């Protein structure tokens, strides 16, 4: 995904339009292939809801066990075949770069619903939509990213996207083993974007406009003792939100495990379930934009 600032804003505008009026029959008579080579319930249901709300029909599979991959078919052949049937392909695949490759060989547009650890652009766009909706702007924001900043592709893509806008500040809160990779910090320094790194939560959270939480997964640690040391350090509780800004909102790509205490859910600053709802409108916008329907 290499969207320009204007394209981001165009998608945001379309998403707002679909939120106001979700059922628009733009895909009437069209067939969309939903190819999930690995399971991802949330992303698939969100896409399929978007397609249904646009009046399209869906073909596809929800994991590779129910496709011809089990017979040894290559991605190349699957895409060549499906692109003869459908008007659009939505694809989730465990291999990195698979979406770009599929787009090269497909006769119809391909939307990347996640290609391994590489990209998950529709998640980034729904995160951006959630930010602009709650903050009314994508400029001058102080964004806190918390948890697994090393392997979390959502935080990397969001960082790149928000960096297109004016004057952001980033605060990274992560254990030593899972800190933001150097390549992203170099990128920020080159763009003269301010960022600060922290090892744990503190009062600095009172400066945040957005707190973006992620899961700290046990399997990411080479040393299990290191995991035990940090596993309870990155948990957000309601009492920590007392001195935060009124406009501050908490985002999380979900699913969460224990990193956001359930007592936060009732706080008006908890935005993660609304964020998931925004996914449908954003995906309607992406489909309409991709097929030039709007």
């Amino acid at each position, binding site marked *: 995904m290499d969207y320009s600032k204007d394209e981001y804003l165009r998608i945001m505008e379309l998403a707002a339009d679909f939120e106001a009026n979700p059922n628009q029959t733009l895909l009437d008579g069209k067939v969309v292939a939903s190819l999930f080579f690995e399971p991802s319930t949330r992303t698939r249901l969100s896409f399929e809801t978007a397609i249904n709300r646009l009046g399209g029909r869906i073909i596809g599979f929800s994991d590779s066990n129910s496709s011809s991959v089990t017979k040894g078919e*290559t*991605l*190349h052949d699957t895409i060549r075949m499906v692109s003869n049937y459908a008007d659009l392909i939505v694809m989730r695949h*465990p*291999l*990195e*770069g*698979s979406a*770009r*490759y599929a787009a090269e060989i497909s006769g119809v547009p391909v939307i990347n619903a996640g*290609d*391994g*650890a*590489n*990209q998950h652009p529709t998640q980034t766009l729904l995160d951006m939509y959630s930010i602009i909706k709650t903050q009314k702007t994508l400029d001058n924001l102080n964004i806190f990213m918390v948890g697994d900043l090393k392997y979390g592709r959502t935080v990397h893509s969001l960082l790149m996207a928000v960096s297109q806008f004016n004057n952001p500040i980033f605060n990274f809160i992560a254990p030593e083993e899972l800190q933001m990779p150097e*390549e992203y910090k170099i990128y920020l320094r080159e763009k003269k974007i301010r960022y600060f790194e922290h090892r744990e939560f503190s009062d600095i959270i009172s400066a945040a406009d957005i707190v973006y939480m992620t899961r700290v997964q046990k399997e990411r640690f080479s040393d299990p003792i290191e995991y035990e040391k940090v596993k309870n350090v990155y948990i957000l509780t309601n009492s920590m939100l007392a001195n935060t800004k009124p406009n501050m909102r908490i985002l999380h790509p979900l699913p969460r495990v224990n990193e956001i205490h359930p007592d936060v859910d009732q706080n008006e600053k908890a935005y993660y379930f609304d964020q998931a709802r925004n996914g449908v409108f954003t995906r309607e916008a992406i489909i309409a934009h991709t097929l030039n329907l709007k």
Partner: protein
Amino acid sequence: MKDPIKKKLKLKVSAISEGTVIDHIPSENLFKVISILKLDKTKNMITFGANLDSEKMGAKAIIKISNKFFEDDDINKIALIAPNAKLNIIRDYEVVEKKVVKVPDEVIGIVKCFNPKCITNNEPVTTSFRVISKLPLALKCLYCEKITHENQIVIKKSSE
């Protein structure tokens, strides 16, 4: 050629009247160079020598191809494995032009992506990289977007 030792070395591989001499190839990469330039498929007369003494490199290889003149884009493909290679363009037994190889801005095929989870290592896809640094070499995969660094570079076999 005033140095008699160098002159003797030259004569180990017979001279050509028209064509290209590629000198200063690392010996261990001779056959990769032949493969990348598709010299194994050509009908031109080719002579080569490997493990020749070189003051600069220890052991070097040399290839002489008769009646063949390369485009820069083609010859630059070998820069990844023979960065110090020098080309002598021969007309009527005389060197009429000397060229050095340059690392190109894009590398198509030739190199494997180091990321085992990249689609190019799992399906028959031609690799494609943007060169983000020439010294030391760093290649960014067009597909998985991961960076293959100089010490990770593996040249694809011609069958891959």
